[in-house]
């Protein structure tokens, strides 16, 4: 054998040294050139290790034209030859990769063994023969999945899928069920076979646990439920006791008539197509969950679909877990719905539902999960209606709250009620306020029961209690139904949770498992109880007997959150810390999701131990768009981290802040600079430059980029983009153009968010040259023709649209195009694009005078931008919304919106455009000439002389000129008018010409030239009419009438 190429589980090449009789592994560093490694891998899998050069180009550089890709092929071949040259031979093995007659061949004429190829052929013959022995022999060749480091390379996909399927088929043929469920946890037949093996040995408990594991695995895949065969097996082994319905659905609640009426009202309205949200709040034990049960019962009585999740189920669960649990519950009950759900949405939900580790490049992630969840909600609501319940929201992560907020807004136009339960608390205030002020939901505060209600409840539960006991229950229960129920259960006063029936070992086992959350599986209990198997089962039985725990859909749960609290309260602080650490270590050893393990270590006061888990959890949070949760985790551990962990966490801190458009990204990256190395360091430099550029700190940006060269790694694209942005902002348009072009060649269209930045940069360049309008139309057209660009929509292009909107454009056409764009963007999960399109439609509606439509679209656009944390877009939409309010005469409302917009706009890529517009509007909404002048002065101070977009100047200068003229400040008026004219000259053929004429009319009036003022005013009116802006024309007409009168 001359050469041995391993591709299963890892990638390595071993060369036989001629004559030496010793094998030599090619050093890993020899493959640092990705192109060279990819070329060798690709050819190793090809028949006779040969491909046509165009096949190679298509596979490795699919977006690059063949002539442009050929130099890359030669370069890759060169580095491959270098890597494959044995030590002590010339530096390049010339015959290792041969390009001849348009063909590319790897190691021609040499004896080469490729493990993946061998495995495939052995596997296929074993399967064809149906031989378990041959299957076992073939399995011995399988060292792991194909090229795990190239997981997302399309050229490896077919081989990977084939080998994965062969591997599973072999496991099946060999009867290796445990291995099979490890690689495919949803293989029900394998679970059943495993359970059967336990049963055959008389091990019922073992069989039960296999079924529980199966249920747990299936629960992580949307809409997958155990088959009839599995249910039958479960019944056979006697664990079929169906989990009881949640608490006592259908039971009449005492003293909650108003709550019941509120629920019915929400269901009624939603039934008529006006969905909404209901946030049930109140202290622990007041009966929030019971009201949510009631809502579920009422909804089901109406034939609605329902889905339910709770944030307390798992301590420190992964992002979005309680909302996903509700959606998974919905899908389990109605798996047929998934026949109508786009695969890409389903995959997105599955990915998030699995809680598995997700990699994150550090770039802003898709918000596709939001769109996927919304689509499932719409689908489930079709026909009858949908009730989505998420309980214990006070324990939810920030990401869940944002997703719920989004779904609450989706609910408005559907037959959907989103019912939420939470203890009151600070972090829910924003959600609460938003639901109420937007009119998309209500808060239903539950107060403790009054005395008559307590008496009625006690009478219903324990009719025989004497009056004195009842009075005592009333006194000590504080009117909380949970305490009343507990008191009645134990027929004693005090209303505490009765744990006295639990022996020492039982309590120890239960309180350790309580650390995990309110629900747990048998496996988890066995793992953390600290007892042997028999004692653990005995503890579980005792817990069930005393009703401290009860069976759940999968495994068990504490009967109530307060019962779990009471169990945990038996720990001393020291005991809890120690147990928490042990439990976290156990979970980590069992491969539990990093978010969960990190959370447990932190909760038990062990931040140092949390660090490696937090590092992985932060990446998952970033990949899923749960930026604030990621930041919170970093803040909790970073001071306890050292070495590469600390470096990575600090770099991620910058990424997360940058994703949130937070100015603190600059100092965060700066902090990361001194501790990172390699590609990560280069990425930090590029991102620091980007953050600093957008923050206006060009010196820092330049310093960050100084000496940074391209190196063929993942940082090249971001570096080029950062260079381009910096060049643009220092006014070197030629350099910016060149950097943008170079970036275009390096960036892959598969990374849409970098493309967004690139399109934005090129847009800004076009803007500067006054070519935006054409460019915008071109981008819009391209987006419609090329779906791959649809994800890369124009987040930073808010000011671009002004060309379109102020020019002689048919607004109904703009709205139509915007709607098309929005649908497409939504389909691709590019919510920022959808938000942009909605805002564009709203602006067009505003300018054509359709205030109702404008109000609706712009409100939606502001909310959408907020949901995806796009501050610039939110500010922009709010500013436009203020114009709608102003047109309706609601100056106070408009001011309030502008007040909200201002801080959002201040630090954003487009602040130099937005700030002028917002300050311009602040002048227009002033109640008096004096106030208007004050607003002009404030605007001038805030805007300063630097960083001003000369195009957007007009948006501030026109209102400033008018206000100054109206206040008799003639010098100021002339100054602003001059500036407005300079800026408006760049807007030839748009309505800004009319605005400038209007300002001239005000100046003429202020200088006493009434006739000239009237003439100019009439001219402005005409120009507005021509530009298709009826509101402005009408405003001038009205003012003219008033003046004449």
């Amino acid at each position: 054998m001359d050469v041995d190429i391993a591709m299963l589980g890892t990638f390595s090449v071993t060369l036989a040294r001629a004559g030496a009789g010793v094998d030599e592994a090619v050093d890993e560093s020899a493959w640092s050139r990705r192109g060279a490694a990819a070329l060798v891998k690709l050819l190793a899998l090809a028949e006779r290790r040969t491909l046509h050069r165009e096949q190679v180009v298509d596979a490795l550089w699919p977006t690059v034209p063949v002539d442009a890709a050929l130099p890359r092929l030669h370069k890759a071949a060169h580095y491959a030859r270098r890597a494959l040259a044995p030590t002590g031979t010339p530096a390049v093995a010339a015959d290792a990769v041969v390009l001849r007659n348009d063909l590319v061949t790897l190691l021609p004429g040499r004896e080469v063994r490729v493990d993946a190829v061998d495995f495939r052929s052995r596997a296929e013959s074993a399967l064809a023969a149906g031989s378990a022995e041959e299957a076992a022999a073939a399995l011995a060749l399988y060292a792991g999945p194909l090229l795990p480091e190239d997981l997302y390379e399309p050229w490896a996909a077919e081989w990977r899928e084939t080998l994965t399927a062969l591997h599973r088929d072999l496991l099946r043929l060999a009867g290796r069920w445990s291995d099979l469920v490890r690689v495919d946890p949803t293989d029900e037949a394998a679970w059943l076979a495993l359970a059967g093996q336990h049963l055959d040995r008389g091990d019922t408990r073992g069989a039960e646990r296999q079924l529980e594991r199966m249920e747990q695995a299936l629960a992580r895949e949307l809409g997958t439920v155990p088959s009839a065969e599995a249910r039958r097996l479960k019944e056979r082994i006697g664990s079929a006791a169906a989990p009881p319905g949640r608490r006592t659905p259908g039971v009449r609640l005492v003293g909650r008539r108003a709550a019941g009426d509120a629920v019915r009202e929400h269901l009624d309205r939603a039934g008529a197509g006006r969905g909404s949200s209901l946030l049930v709040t109140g202290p622990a034990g007041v009966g929030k969950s019971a009201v949510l049960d009631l809502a579920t019962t009422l909804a089901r009585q109406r034939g609605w679909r329902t889905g339910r999740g709770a944030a307390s189920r798992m301590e420190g669960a992964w992002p979005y877990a309680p909302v996903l649990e509700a959606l998974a519950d919905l899908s389990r009950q109605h798996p047929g719905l998934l026949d109508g759900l786009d695969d890409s949405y389903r995959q997105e939900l599955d990915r998030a539902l699995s809680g598995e580790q997700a990699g994150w490049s550090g770039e802003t992630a898709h918000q596709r999960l939001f769109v996927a969840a919304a689509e499932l909600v719409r689908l489930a609501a079709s026909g009858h209606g949908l009730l989505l319940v998420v309980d214990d929201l006070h324990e939810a992560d920030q990401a869940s709250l944002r997703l719920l907020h989004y779904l609450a807004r989706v609910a408005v136009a559907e037959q959907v009620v989103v019912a939420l339960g939470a203890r009151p608390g600070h972090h829910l205030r924003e959600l609460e306020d938003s639901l109420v002020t937007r009119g998309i939901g209500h808060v239903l505060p539950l107060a403790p029961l009054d005395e008559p209600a307590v008496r009625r409840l006690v009478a219903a539960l324990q009719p025989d209690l004497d009056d004195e006991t009842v009075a005592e229950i009333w006194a000590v229960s504080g009117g909380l139904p949970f305490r009343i129920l507990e008191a009645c259960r134990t027929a004693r006063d005090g209303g505490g949770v009765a744990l006295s029936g639990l022996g020492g070992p039982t309590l120890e086992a239960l309180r350790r498992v309580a650390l995990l959350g309110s629900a747990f599986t048998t496996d988890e209990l066995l793992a953390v109880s600290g007892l042997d198997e028999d004692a653990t089962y005995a503890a579980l039985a005792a817990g069930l007997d005393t009703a401290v725990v009860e069976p759940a859909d999968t495994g068990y749960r504490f009967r109530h959150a307060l019962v779990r609290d009471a169990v945990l309260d038996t720990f001393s602080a020291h005991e809890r810390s120690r147990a928490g650490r042990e439990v976290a270590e156990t979970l980590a050893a069992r491969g539990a999701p990093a978010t969960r393990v990190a959370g447990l270590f932190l909760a038990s006061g062990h931040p140092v131990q949390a660090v490696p888990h937090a590092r992985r959890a932060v990446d998952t949070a970033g990949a899923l768009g749960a930026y604030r949760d990621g930041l919170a985790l970093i803040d909790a551990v970073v001071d306890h981290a050292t070495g590469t962990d600390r470096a990575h966490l600090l770099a991620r801190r910058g990424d997360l802040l940058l994703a949130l458009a937070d100015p603190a990204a600059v100092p965060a990256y700066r902090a990361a600079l001194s501790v990172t190395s390699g590609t990560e360091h280069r990425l930090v430099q590029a991102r620091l430059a980007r953050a600093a550029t957008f923050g206006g700190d060009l010196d820092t940006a330049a310093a960050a980029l100084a000496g940074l060269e391209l190196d063929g790694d993942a940082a090249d694209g971001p570096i080029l983009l950062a260079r381009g942005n910096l060049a643009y902002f220092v006014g070197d348009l030629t350099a910016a153009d060149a950097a943008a072009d170079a970036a275009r060649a390096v960036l892959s269209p598969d990374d849409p968010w970098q493309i967004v930045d690139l399109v934005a940069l090129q847009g800004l360049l076009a803007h500067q040259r006054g070519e935006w309008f054409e460019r915008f139309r071109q981008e819009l057209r391209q987006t419609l023709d090329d779906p791959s660009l649809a994800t890369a929509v124009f987040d930073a292009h808010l000011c671009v649209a002004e060309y379109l909107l102020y020019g002689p454009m048919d607004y109904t056409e703009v709205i139509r195009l915007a709607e098309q764009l929005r649908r497409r963007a939504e389909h691709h999960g590019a919510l920022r694009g959808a938000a942009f399109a909605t805002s564009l439609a709203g602006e067009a509606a505003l300018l054509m005078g359709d205030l109702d439509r404008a109000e609706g679209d712009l409100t939606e656009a502001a909310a959408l931008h907020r949901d995806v944390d796009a501050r610039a877009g939110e500010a922009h939409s709010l500013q436009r919304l203020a114009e709608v309010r102003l047109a309706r005469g609601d100056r106070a409302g408009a001011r309030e919106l502008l007040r909200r917009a201002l801080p959002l706009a201040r630090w954003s890529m487009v602040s130099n455009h937005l700030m002028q517009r917002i300050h311009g509007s602040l002048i227009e909404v002033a109640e008096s000439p004096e106030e208007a002048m004050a607003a002009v002065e404030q605007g001038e101070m805030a805007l300063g002389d630097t960083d001003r977009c000369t195009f957007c100047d007009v948006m501030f200068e026109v209102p400033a000129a008018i206000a100054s003229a109206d206040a008799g400040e003639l010098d100021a008026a002339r100054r602003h008018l001059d500036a407005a004219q300079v800026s408006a000259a760049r807007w030839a053929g748009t309505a800004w010409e009319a605005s400038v004429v209007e300002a001239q009319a005000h100046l003429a009036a202020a200088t006493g030239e009434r006739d000239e003022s009237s003439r100019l005013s009439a001219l402005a009116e005409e120009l507005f009419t021509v530009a298709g802006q009826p509101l402005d024309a009408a405003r001038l007409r009205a003012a003219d009438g008033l003046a004449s009168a």
Partner: protein
Amino acid sequence: MSTGTSTNTYDVVVVGARVAGASTAMLLARAGARVLLLERAEPGTDTLSTHGLMRGGVVQLARWGLLDRLVATGTPAVRSTTFHWIAEEPVHVTIRPGAGVDALYAPRRHVLDRLLAEAAAEAGAEVRHGVRVTGLLRDRNGRVSGVRTEDRDGRTGSARSAYVVGADGIRSVVAEAAGANVERLGRHASAVRYAYVAGLDAPGYEWMYGDGAAAGLIPTNDGHHCVFVATTPDRMRTLRLGRTADEAFAALFHAAAPDQAGRLSEATRVDRYHGWAGAPAYLRRPWGPGWALVGDAGYFKDPISTHGMTDALRDAELLAGALLVALADRDLERPALGEYHRRRDELSTALFEVSDEIASYAWDIPTAQRLLRRLSAAMSDELELLAALPSPAILDDSPAGARLA
């Protein structure tokens, strides 16, 4: 002349041995009822159809133990559905294992209808092809008590039975003679043209919605696809003016899915075009004293949803269950058949309305997407009902039959 059935008495005469009729006859016969199944056409003849079985329909075949036979006929498994919207991204949905089936099927009707009729015969039903029903017999109370028949040679006859089931399609003689009222009438109608083609690369169902037109690709037996185009009857008529049949078909396909139109040129048409001029949907009262309706005879909805066979398989079981109750105890006829009526309507309303709205061709894409979402939700409801149906004796395919008594 007599057909030889005039003196026989049956529990049920089922008129029409296509999907609805043959299934009903089979289920009744499996439960031990004496069943006569009459069909005007000869065995194994084709009929106009879009073929596509949705999951609910495949579930029924699986529950009845017939899916393996269908698979054995070489009918290809369909494991994905793709929706094409004009100027939008296609939506791809993989058919995953669920409710006991892991693929969908779209058999040619001469395959499926024959298979079902044979299953009915195996279950003990007396199956007669080439016999036309010309009218109903009634007893002195006016209750339907059998059918009058005529065979292909013009010989007339009659058959007496406790119940007559009309499964004789949109122009149902039984419905007409029984006086079954139309209880709900649709407002729109699709005109559809179909062609069978070879050489198309489309392993899954594909539905296309475009400019006032729709189209579909359905993989069926022999490596062929059923390709259909649909629009309003008016447009279909004008489209043909000045165009060849091929040109008209291609023009409408292009209107439905401009991006996909090129794919048709890869394919070869293997027989003539088939057409459906369009008729508004209806729900007829499905039962009365001594009679009941199933399939298109009682409930016809626009073919654009390609859901007719699936509903027929669903209703066959609902009706067979109700008739078995009524046969066992005449006093239970009203509640049992009334329940059949209620459930059929409940499960059909959304499908009926959505198909009718789609058949207006007055939608824009967001509206069509909303309608399709409702369609998916309604299919999910149907599936849940089928999954929850008990596994009654009628599912046992042993033919013998004293159980009913």
